[in-house]
């Protein structure tokens, strides 16, 4: 069995599970009453996990959006109006667009430079590359909060304040991406790599025509992870972006609260914004759940 086949087979069970089809699981040997219990527990837990967001959805369809008890939780009729108001009047569309731009730039940038780095780390015979890899991995311990004050000053010194550069470039080096890609590259059978070497295939051709096509799934999976990560950034944009035109959705969400000083609180708008903000990453996750889960499976090795 080739390594690829092997990997395939390993994921087969997983894939079946994620596929959502009701396939038989040979592993699960359960008396039917027992599994009813399991299903019940699952429903309960899933309900608990999902409840808050159901509330958000319901509230986003109401006029004032004040819901103080369970019976209030019936959908209202102001959905269209609320979403319109959030997107148009409050410029939430603009924030979403900024978030999207930021996330896409971060994802693409990360992928490109991480592929290059992982390529060097796995396929080049150079000294100290384990050290280099460690050096990159260590950045996991340096999240934004540890360094955002000097970073803030640095970005300003560079004259990048308030710009797309400020919320993208610092994110481009990605320990996680390099790590996952490296793991994946290491799982590509040596013989395939050596075949290329026997033919004298150069690094550019090798990367573009062998490595990237063979890593499609992982690249998509990593992209989702990175997208979610970038999309959910809050602290850094809060600090570095102060012009409304460049603000991202996470921070912009607060603006939907309405005239806070004036004592207004538009929960329905906030929830509409929340739902909007959740949509892009959720859609990606549902759409690409297979590569996503497979990527995680690889990563754990």
């Amino acid at each position, binding site marked *: 069995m080739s390594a690829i*086949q092997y990997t395939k087979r390993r994921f087969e069970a997983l894939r079946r599970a994620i596929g959502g089809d009701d396939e038989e699981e040979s592993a699960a040997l359960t008396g039917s009453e027992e599994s009813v219990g399991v299903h019940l527990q699952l429903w309960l837990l899933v309900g608990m996990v999902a409840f808050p967001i159901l509330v958000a959805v319901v509230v986003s369809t109401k006029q004032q959006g004040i819901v103080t008890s369970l019976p209030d939780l019936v959908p209202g009729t102001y959905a269209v109006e609320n979403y319109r108001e959030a997107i148009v009047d409050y410029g939430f569309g603009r924030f979403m667009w900024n978030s999207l731009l930021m996330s896409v730039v971060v994802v693409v940038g990360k992928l490109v430079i991480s592929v290059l780095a992982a390529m060097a780390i796995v396929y080049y015979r150079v000294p100290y590359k384990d050290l280099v890899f460690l050096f990159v991995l260590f950045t996991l311990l340096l999240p934004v909060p540890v360094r955002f004050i000097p970073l803030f000053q640095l970005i300003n010194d560079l004259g990048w304040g308030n710009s797309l550069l400020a919320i993208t470039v610092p994110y481009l080096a990605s320990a996680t991406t390099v790590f996952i890609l490296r793991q994946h590259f290491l799982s590509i059978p040596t013989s395939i790599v050596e*075949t290329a070497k026997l033919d004298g295939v150069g690094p550019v051709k090798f990367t573009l025509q062998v490595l990237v096509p063979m890593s499609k799934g992982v690249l998509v999976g990593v992209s989702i992870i990175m997208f979610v990560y970038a999309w959910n950034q809050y602290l850094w944009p809060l600090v570095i972006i102060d012009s409304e035109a460049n603000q991202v959705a996470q921070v912009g969400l607060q603006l939907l609260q309405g005239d806070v000083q004036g004592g207004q609180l538009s929960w329905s708008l906030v929830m509409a914004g929340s739902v909007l903000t959740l949509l892009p990453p959720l859609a990606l996750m549902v759409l690409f759940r297979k590569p996503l889960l497979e990527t995680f499976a690889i990563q754990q090795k």
Partner: protein
Amino acid sequence: MTTITLENLRKEFDDVVAVDGLDLTIRDGEFLVVVGPSGCGKSTTLRLLAGLETATDGEIRMDDRDVTGTEPPERNVAMVFQNYALYPHMTGRRNITFGMNAGGSFTDEEIDRRVAEAAETLDITGLLDRKPQAMSGGERQRVALGRAIVRDPDAFLMDEPLSNLDAKLRIQMRAELTRLHAELGTTTVYVTHDQTEAMTLGERVVVMDDGRIQQVDPPQSLYDFPANRFVAEFIGDPAMNMIDVAVEGGVAVHDAFRIPLPAGNAAGETGSEAESLADPDAGDRPHAVLGIRPEDLHPARERPDLGETEFDATVDVTEPLGDSLLVHCSVGDATFKMSAEPRSSLEPGGTVSVTYDPERLHLFEPETGEAFYHSATAPAPSDRLERVVND
């Protein structure tokens, strides 16, 4: 069409000596099989040939070119891997042609023509537009072969190319490889750990152990004239019986039996300095190892033609193999296996009178394992081909 010469080839990994000073000439157009137990250095040898590993010491020459330090593309060899090494995202055709122009020596039309030809030869024309996951194992291996063929290399290097196939397919592909080799006549080095493959495919077989060549010979010579205990036990299934004996006056003496040794052929430099045992009266030794293959031992009543050279043994276990019955016997402190007629009625616990084929006795040094006596007459030197001696 190339002669490949290895001289004192060595490869060390950190603390492991994977290949320990090989001297070998692979003849132009020859199908050479390298066989040996896992970890003996077969793959490393092949990879040294391909240029995928750099030799620690020694020299590799292709015809008269010293290629020891050159990059793989310059060597013009093609390799076939156990796991096919097909790019999963490319069609069969793309797999075959990918990287061909890196060498730069083919025009597009030429490539097309060559692919069509190879596909024809391998009967994979229908597979050219499929991706590997839509092919069976055998089909994949055929495409991998196709990749090797279109490159028109000076040599094929194959590393256990059939190991991932199931038994039926393996036998079928074995025949195909033979046919292909007959057709193309390209020098081929074929690595396997499967002795049946080695025996049936190789024009000559190299037996390796522990990074060294143990013997290089045509298959049947290996079987009949193993150079040492390792080769004797490695080649042949079930393995050759080995019994500790003493040699006294041309007779192998065991507590429980005595086997006279016919004036045979001493091992060593063939035909030349035949050792004293060629005369069975000379060279008594207190310790020697007598080797007899199970199929050269028989229940006496099945082979009355072998004469009275027989002794009694106890039957321990019988294993029906279909075409024969493998009888585990013991005599004194020795145990051995014997091949009997499939439908013999030998019951465990019973006694059987055992005879042997006096033409097929072997003696080995107990310490070094070197063979020093084969009762059969060696084939003419011309037939045995050249021998490479390592030590």
